[in-house]
């Protein structure tokens, strides 16, 4: 019963089990017995884990679970490893720059074949009246930038693709 969880861009694979008495979350760092009980508040729960008793508010979305805890809000992306294996084209997550929202390309600052450094600007987009720079997630070579200046794109469109890393 595995899941890959994505928090702040970092992925962790874990699996959930039950020993007859309680649930155990098995993470790369070890096994964590844990328990989650609802309270009266909308989305309200109490989490017991690692000796902590923690009030949380939560909402389960289609791809992510949202948690409000200690005055902070977190989004935890959920990926079913089986679905990822059956994934569409096998492109690794950090090869692809995906549109965070629909918008328009303001400028293109790199072209296929360019060697780019992590953090280097690849293109500038405008969405919701705001300009945003999209940067290379790692050092690499630009494989494809499918949109030109002035083009509109939809949510989750691929805006740039880096060539796969050679192992």
């Amino acid at each position, binding site marked *: 019963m595995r899941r890959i969880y994505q928090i702040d861009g970092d992925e962790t694979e874990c699996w959930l089990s039950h020993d007859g008495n309680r649930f155990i979350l098995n993470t790369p760092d070890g096994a964590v017995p844990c328990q*989650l009980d609802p309270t009266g508040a909308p989305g309200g729960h109490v989490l017991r884990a690692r000796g902590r008793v923690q009030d949380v508010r939560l909402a389960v979305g289609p791809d992510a679970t949202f948690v409000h805890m200690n005055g902070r809000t977190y989004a935890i992306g959920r990926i079913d490893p089986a679905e990822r294996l059956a994934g569409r084209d096998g492109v690794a997550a950090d090869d692809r720059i995906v549109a965070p929202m629909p918008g328009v390309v303001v400028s293109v600052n790199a072209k296929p074949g360019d060697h780019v450094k992590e953090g280097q600007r690849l293109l500038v987009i405008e969405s919701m009246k705001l300009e945003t720079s999209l940067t290379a997630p790692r050092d690499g070579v630009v494989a494809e930038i499918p949109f030109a200046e002035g083009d509109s794109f939809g949510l989750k469109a691929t805006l740039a693709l880096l060539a796969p890393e050679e192992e």
Partner: protein
Amino acid sequence: MGISKLLVANRGEIAARVLRTARARGLATAVVRHRLEQEGPAHLIADEVVTIDGPTPVAAYLDIPQIVEVAKKIGADAVHPGYGFLSENAGFVAALEKAGVTFVGPTSEVIDLMGDKIRARAFVEERGFPVAPSAIEDDDPASFVERSRAVGYPLLIKPSAGGGGKGMRVVREDGALESEIETARREGERYFGDGRLFVERYIERPRHIEVQVMGDGQGNVVHFWERECSIQRRFQKIIEETPSPALTPEQRDEICETAAGIARAVNYRGAGTVEFIYAQDGSFYFLEMNTRLQVEHPVTEMVTGYDLVAEQLRIAAGEGLSAAQTDIPQSGHSIELRICAEDATEDFRPAIGDILLLDEPQGEGVRVDSGILDGGKVTTDFDPMLSKLIVHGPDRTQAIARARQAVRNYVILGVTTNTGYLDAILAHPDFASGNVSTGFLAEQAEALTAPGEDVTELLMAVAALSDERLVSDVMQIPEMHRKMGGWRN
């Protein structure tokens, strides 16, 4: 003149906020709504919701003939424009006038004057109010260097045709002036095809301080004190407060009286805001006048006890101001936080999503002006501001404490918001001491977005245990897991 039916030509939190006051005053109310727009709080308050259409939702709200037609069709005798959209559009005011509908706001002449930044600045300067010292090359190219020198250092050279910071040069000493002018000219030619320049005094670490004014159009103008709005990202305010922690009582009177004087000079009608750049040495300069209600007007309402929309509606109905200057207190301290759908750790990238759970903070001194409903969708059609959290406390320290508690209890799940970032600003020692400038967020970017305690494991436990499919799969095969044994303690 009287008003019996008000159309609100806006949306989101400001439409809801205006409608509440209009209803409380016994007016019939209506609001426009784009065909594809999510239902919001305003649509639940208004007596009537009128559908408008356009190539994009924003275009519909900017469509003057369509909105004037709506006002006529439903028999509205006044239109409140809110902020943004048509609120500072002289053509809209003229079109309403022609249709015999009252515009809740100033005259089209004043909107025109204040909308032209160069004319407005000249108008204010001619009447003896402070503007930043400057020199325009075009006025007399031969004496430009001499006149620049007279502006005083540090000064900022800007291309006349410029924008976006390109070609701007800061000059701190006389020796560098002429060479920097030549560099700026070359940059202006390269970027804008135009080498003409102007210079103005460069204000180091400025603060943004503005004053709420209100006039009846009959020569009576009062101010409702100042607001400080130095906490800005991408030139947009996200935290505003009043009183400003920077001002002494004497400076406060001076800046507020200056603002009222500027409003008096145009015989101002309605609610307006005079914005100033405030230098660290206590000098201040006119920046611009906004001829509408501002987003941040609630902090003024919290310390003065006046409902500014009610004042706007009184003035539009010809009833005049309800307050004399001496009646307007500045009591306690108020802070507003703009709750925006954006990711502060990703350069304030706007976020979209479904609002899966919404629980707004409540309590003494807490006000929420919201434009969203539980179950709604946040789309890219409009501005990322979802709502405003406004708090009031007896003093600044208590107001900050109340703001922190409220923003930490503001639950919005399903779309990324800036609540955690706002809390980090409130918790910053420089904010607590009031030692900020408009550059504060950029200077402190790293500290303000530093990751907190690592709670990855707890979050994964929550995500796993609330995953119904995962839990049911696990419970269907307990035997196998028991046999694995190794996980038992």
